[in-house]
């Protein structure tokens, strides 16, 4: 899977398939602080991400 993270924008490769929750744990990302978008669609925590997925982990925290 190709994983894009934001702020700062960077890309990492992770072997799939894998659930969203496992991916969050692997990347040490707090689920409360991000949205997970797989192939352009929002996915919940129990969704399985195939190895071919293009995943965006979008930070939702703003400075206010």
């Amino acid at each position, binding site marked *: 899977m190709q994983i894009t993270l*934001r*702020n700062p924008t960077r890309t990492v490769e992770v072997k799939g398939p894998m659930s969203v929750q496992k991916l969050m744990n692997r990347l040490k990302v*707090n*689920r*409360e*602080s*991000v*949205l997970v*978008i797989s192939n352009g*669609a*929002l*996915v*919940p*925590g*129990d*969704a399985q991400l195939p190895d071919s997925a293009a995943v965006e982990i*979008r*930070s*939702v*925290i*703003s*400075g*206010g």
Partner: protein
Amino acid sequence: MKCRVCRGSAIIDLRRHNANFCAEHFVKFCHDQVARAIKDHKMIASGDRALVAVSGGKDSLAIWRILRELGYEADGLYVGLGIGEYSEDSGGYVRRFAEANDLNLVEVDLRREYGYDIPHGSRAARRAPCSACGMSKRHVFDKAAVDGNYDVLVTGHNLDDEAAVLFGNVLRWQTDYLGRQEPVLEARPGFPRKVKPLIRLAEREMAAYCVITGIDYVLDECPMAVGNRHIGYKEALNAIEVQSPGTKHDFYHGFLRSASAKFKPETDAARDALNDCQSCGAPTTNEVCAFCSLVERATAAQPVRLSPRPEREKRQKKSTTPATDERTT
């Protein structure tokens, strides 16, 4: 995961509500939460003209859309802060949103109207950029809402914003600030009525709302806000929230329910002691308000900015040295 309402496939799980939603019912959930906040706190009356402060970020664009969906008359107000490419991009998102949705947008540019921008103004006034920015925006928001005869000024502060501000104020026991952290601030001479209809929705929910409804918003963080204290508070609260869903809601809404009134007398007394600014007439504790003072310092500093003095060059050199060292180690 199944949608709590229709049992279709869920696209988002909200642990603090112990609920999952499909796209359609998540959008309805967001609208219902805003409608409930407006009703519970009597934020906007039927027939009110609202002015929504919009930045190009997810929260302000979303609340503008939601208010219109709920049938309110709402114009947008965008303040050009002059923070380089970031401000240019943000303005573009706002203008495209207004045009695509056929909405009325009011624009105020700090450089054009007041002769300064946030990066230079904050430096000249020796204020932290976020402090100068917040103060400038508040002044421009108030003035635009009062001058435009709007009944209410709406901001996109969400649950996370309010919980983080409360967290910071409690950590330092800033009791004067605690007394004014309310979702509705009534109008007073020089100040419009101000409301925060997103206090029941978390930051993650607002971002999801934008993705689902196709609201294109600025994704980059303001370069001047990166690493600020407010973001640190949000991260700290999210570290608790992930272990104990609902904590942010209970912290903030519990404060409103049980503690906020206790701090009001101090705040009310401070409000009663306000004078009119000798320069712009806005309410202030001093002869000249903080905003006019910032404008004076920022504009007086313009020639210095265009032609740096030797000591300024020295300061700049000094400030770049540690960063270079850091990168090489």
